[in-house]
């Protein structure tokens, strides 16, 4: 029997008042220690070569957002050429591009191909993955599992310091003769092997990025397995942590084959080997003198063995973020948490056996194609389950339309469109007509742009108060949301229409040459205009973001009245000092909102000891409620 009017703290019972005092004392001590400690950390160790997961997360976030903007800008240039083939750029842009890329202001086809390859590469490897995993994963996961930091802080720092040079190296391609890589983000040989030196740079950059991801994924898995707080069993993990865990396994196991492939391609380019080069090639009229005997499809298999799991790397952390935001803003538990986890794990497994659905038209026989079509249909089911669970979570909710919630809600139908249009691509017979058309472009942009990018926005608005102690402006957030939603649909919806008409992707003139493209070609002007408007729609966000860091409204530590552990730490937890004055203890699942028979607040944080009707639960603002005990180590 619990003693009357006492709450349990760790393994003892005490009066809430005493617990509160102890807690305050603990916080005071730890904060003053943090202050005292901060002086000892030199600037360079604190802000440049930091080993603190929170700061590394912020480094990742800023770098990845910058790359996101860069990748977007490259696309905006391409969209000019697609809307107005052969028309010179406005003078200022033409001057910026220079005469080697755009003589007379008109973009060269070579340059278009560079932009396309780099847009894809930047978006996938330098923007979304680092943002979803490097930034959100780093910042949130240790906090959500109640860990003082990542398991290997120095390794974490190295991950970032491989990622940044890898990214910069890749960008340097634009400044060498021949320009950046121009064989698509897929880099299919033999084209990529006879391509200009930018391709070598691309490979070297990839090797750095792969290494960075490998270190990162090991770190995440070990952290999640080893550093979970006491009481935080696997089935009590927030879904976001599950998503990151599965993602890390995908990165861990899928990237090495690409690394192998990159090494082989590098050998083909610099050492004259023929891994991917068959015998008897004739390049622009002259026979290629190589040993031959290689196989171009070998690259495709190795590439897609990575790149299909990679697309789930792009979406899973997003789904994780969406789950957190939805649970919080519906004020009720997620519906079907177990099926979410099960579907996520199953998705992870299956993603390794569907890769060749990108290669149906490489001369595939019936048996192999039947296999990959079947696995592709199977893998669509866990996505359906996840989405269904998230939608049904709204039933009986009390929906708060906050800015993060708006983005999270929009994610559902947008991902729905993207996912559903994967089905005709996954059936080989209907893929014959749609393969490599704008239909594919539409399909995957719906999942990554209004899908993943919206999830990233949701995450930024949601965890901003955690990282800065301030909230981003709601009004401008809503402006940002509505403009982005409209523009992004205007960009990608017409692409299905173009794709059905048979317009191929990666065309410098958007298909203007082809008869069958004539009926739909005019939509390019509309698409491009929407893309430029989408840029304008980001200004409220960018300004809001930087303004709010310094001037945003100050909010309490648990601003959203959330239940997961990160909200029990202080706002903007001090750097270089762990996260919690005392490691928290977890008593329940992650989303105990609106618990029946629970008086008072409509949420029960994971670390509040016992549901004691009437017992004062330390409200937000004070960090670390529940584990109101600190040990002052002698």
């Amino acid at each position, binding site marked *: 029997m619990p003693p009357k009017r006492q709450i349990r703290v760790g393994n003892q019972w005490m009066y809430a008042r005493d617990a509160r005092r102890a807690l305050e004392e*603990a916080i005071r001590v730890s904060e003053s220690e943090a202050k005292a400690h901060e002086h000892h950390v030199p600037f360079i160790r604190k802000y440049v070569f930091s080993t603190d997961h929170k700061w590394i997360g912020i480094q990742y976030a800023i770098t990845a957002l910058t790359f996101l903007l860069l990748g977007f800008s490259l696309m905006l240039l391409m969209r000019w050429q697609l809307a107005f083939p052969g028309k010179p750029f406005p003078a200022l842009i033409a001057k910026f591009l220079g005469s080697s890329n755009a003589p007379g202001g008109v973009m060269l086809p070579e340059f278009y191909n560079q932009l396309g390859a780099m847009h894809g590469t930047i978006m996938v490897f330098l923007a979304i993955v680092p943002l979803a995993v490097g930034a959100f994963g780093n910042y949130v996961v240790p906090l959500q599992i109640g860990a003082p930091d990542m398991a290997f802080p120095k390794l974490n720092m190295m991950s970032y310091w491989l990622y940044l040079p890898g990214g910069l190296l890749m960008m340097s391609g634009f400044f060498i003769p021949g320009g950046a890589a121009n064989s698509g983000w897929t880099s299919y040989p033999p084209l990529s092997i006879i391509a200009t030196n930018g391709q070598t740079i691309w490979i070297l950059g990839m090797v750095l990025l792969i290494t960075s991801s490998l270190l990162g994924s*090991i770190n995440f898995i070990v952290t999640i397995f*080893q550093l979970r707080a006491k009481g935080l069993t696997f089935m009590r993990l927030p879904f976001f942590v599950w998503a990151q865990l599965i993602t890390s396994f995908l990165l861990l196991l899928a990237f090495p084959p690409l690394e192998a492939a990159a090494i082989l391609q590098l050998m083909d380019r610099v050492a004259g080997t023929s891994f991917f080069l068959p015998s008897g090639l004739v390049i622009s009229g002259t026979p290629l003198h190589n040993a031959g005997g290689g196989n171009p499809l070998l690259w495709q298999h190795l590439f897609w063995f990575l790149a299909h799991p990679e697309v789930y790397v792009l979406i899973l952390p997003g789904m994780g973020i969406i789950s957190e935001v939805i649970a919080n803003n519906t004020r009720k538990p997620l519906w079907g948490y177990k099926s979410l986890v099960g579907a996520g794990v199953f998705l992870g497994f299956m993603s390794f056996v569907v890769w060749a659905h990108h290669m149906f038209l490489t001369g595939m026989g019936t048996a192999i194609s039947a296999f990959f079509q079947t696995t592709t249909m199977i893998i669509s089911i866990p996505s359906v389950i996840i989405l269904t669970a998230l939608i049904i979570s709204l039933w009986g909710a009390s929906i708060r339309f906050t800015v993060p919630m708006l983005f999270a809600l929009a994610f559902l139908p947008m991902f729905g469109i993207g996912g559903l249009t994967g089905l005709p691509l996954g059936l080989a017979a209907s893929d014959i007509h749609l393969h490599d058309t704008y239909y594919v472009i539409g399909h995957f942009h719906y999942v990554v742009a209004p899908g993943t990018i919206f999830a990233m926005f949701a995450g930024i608005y949601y965890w901003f108060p955690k990282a800065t102690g301030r909230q981003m402006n709601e009004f401008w957030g809503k402006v940002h949301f509505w403009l982005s939603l409209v523009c992004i649909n205007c960009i990608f919806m017409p692409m299905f229409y173009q794709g059905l008409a048979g317009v191929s992707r990666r065309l410098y003139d958007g298909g203007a040459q082809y008869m069958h493209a004539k009926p739909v070609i005019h939509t390019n002007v509309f698409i491009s205009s929407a893309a430029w408007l989408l840029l304008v729609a980001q200004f409220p966000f960018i300004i809001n973001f930087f303004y709010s860091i310094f001037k945003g409204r100050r909010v309490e530590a648990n601003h959203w009245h959330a239940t997961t552990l990160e909200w029990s730490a202080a706002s903007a937890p001090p750097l270089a000092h762990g996260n919690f004055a005392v490691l928290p203890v977890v008593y329940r699942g992650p989303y105990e909102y609106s618990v029946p028979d629970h008086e008072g607040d409509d949420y029960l944080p994971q670390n509040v000891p016992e549901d004691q009707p009437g017992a004062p639960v330390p409200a937000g603002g004070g960090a670390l409620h529940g584990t109101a005990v600190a040990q002052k180590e002698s």
Partner: protein
Amino acid sequence: MTTTTLTHPVPVDDGHGHGGGHHEIEIPYTLHPRPDTGMYNGKLGIWLFLASEVMLFGALFSTLILLRTSAPSWPHGWQELNIPLATLNTFILIGSSVTVVLAWANLRLGDLRKGKIFLSITLLCGLGFMVIKSIEYATKFRHHHFPSTNNFFATYFVMTGLHGLHVLGGMIVFGYLIGPGAKLWETNRDQYTNRVEVTGLYWHFVDLVWIFLFPILYLL
């Protein structure tokens, strides 16, 4: 009631040998296994790393199989490569896998001197392997056999080259553990021993890769 008299509900690190205070962030389970996973962080980390390495070499082995099965003709390893030298190398590596275990076992018993001796033998084995490998490479080059010659040599050089890099990496770590890294022994024996154990696991893997490479490249 003051905070100092309360017992800690969650020990920051069950196994940390020393207090440490708040000067460094203490990461739990750096030294001793977490009960439910049965591993300390470094060990789980190295197993994961090795899993990724399996995928890396797995991809290369698949490449070899695919190229070989689809080639109209493919030289036999024993016609082109030096089997005695490679056999010697196989024994050297297997031996070094034993000595690295002995090093760890001695460290567990608290004998740094013996531990270092066995580590040095391991390092020397690695060196011996690399010397023999470079002799092999040199003869190939003298006979004008380069990676570009044909796909047999391309796969041979890439796979053994990558494996060689792994050996080299292991040697660097052993060098560090024998030299400057050994200072850790004075302050934290357990951690030093763990480092040797983890490096040893890696070294076994490098050995294992060679045990696959040797028959596939040389004997088939």
